[in-house]
């Protein structure tokens, strides 16, 4: 059966590393590697930020794997991660409220990382939108992109603020 859902040539016996998979590898090395390092060192707040950045980058790699392996069905994994990722980060931020110190040791890096995790989404989502078969799949990719931008922005802002003092609660306990 010649041709595929993405109109590219049917892949040969071994996977040619096409453009999409090359971009995914780039994201893996340049994005997820540092995010993992960020999650291993530093105070809890910067680790949580690194976890949020890792979630966004992982969702983008999952999104790229769909045109990369020529399988529209792989979008479901990106959709589930785009929905669950920010929820996880927000729950951790809520539970670790008293562990989060006022600010992170490198505030500029933290702001840049949270801003970058929002800014990196459109340049990945837009090409995938065009590569995907028009119609329902494009809508799904746009929904994933919107969820990632919204979730990452909310988490970034929730982490960047100083811990709010709740009603009548000293932060000592």
């Amino acid at each position, binding site marked *: *059966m010649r041709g595929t*859902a993405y109109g590219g040539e*049917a*892949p*040969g*016996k*071994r*996977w040619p590393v096409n453009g999409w998979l090359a971009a995914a590898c780039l994201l893996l090395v340049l994005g997820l590697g540092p995010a993992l390092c960020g999650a291993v060192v530093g105070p809890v707040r910067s680790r949580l930020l690194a976890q949020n950045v890792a979630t966004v980058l992982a969702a983008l790699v999952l999104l790229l794997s769909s045109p990369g*392996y*020529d*399988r*529209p*069905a*792989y979008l479901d994994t990106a959709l589930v991660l785009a929905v669950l990722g920010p929820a996880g980060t927000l729950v951790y931020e809520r539970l670790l409220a008293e562990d989060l110190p006022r600010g992170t040791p490198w505030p500029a890096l933290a702001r840049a990382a949270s801003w970058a995790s929002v800014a990196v989404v459109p340049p990945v989502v837009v090409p995938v939108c065009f590569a995907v078969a028009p119609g329902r799949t494009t809508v799904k990719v746009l929904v994933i992109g919107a969820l990632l931008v919204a979730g990452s922005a909310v988490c970034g802002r929730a982490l960047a603020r100083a811990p709010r003092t709740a009603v009548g609660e000293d932060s000592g306990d």
Partner: protein
Amino acid sequence: MNLLPFLCAGWLFLVGCYALATSRNLIHAVGALAVCQSSTYVLLLAVGYRSGGTAPVFSDVPPGARPVVDPVVQALTLTDVVVGATVTALLLALVVQIAKRHGTVDPDELRELRG
């Protein structure tokens, strides 16, 4: 490249065991056990992988058009992940119970609590 996935699975298992054995906090030990479990996922899926193969799901690809990866190991790993999570929950529940009754989660201190 041929042996790397299996060696990675073996390495994850051994690192998990080392962390489990030398852990000073039972909650950390449960996390190390989760790492041991993840080594079984990597090994199972590495055994079932076929290069050039695609996922054995035919909702968007006509069956038989492309070689597929082994679905049986995926079914095993899938339920392994979910059951592993609930067993981890049971272990954490036991750790909380130990902390309530003995006031400590350090396995060395626990060992001295005779009777």
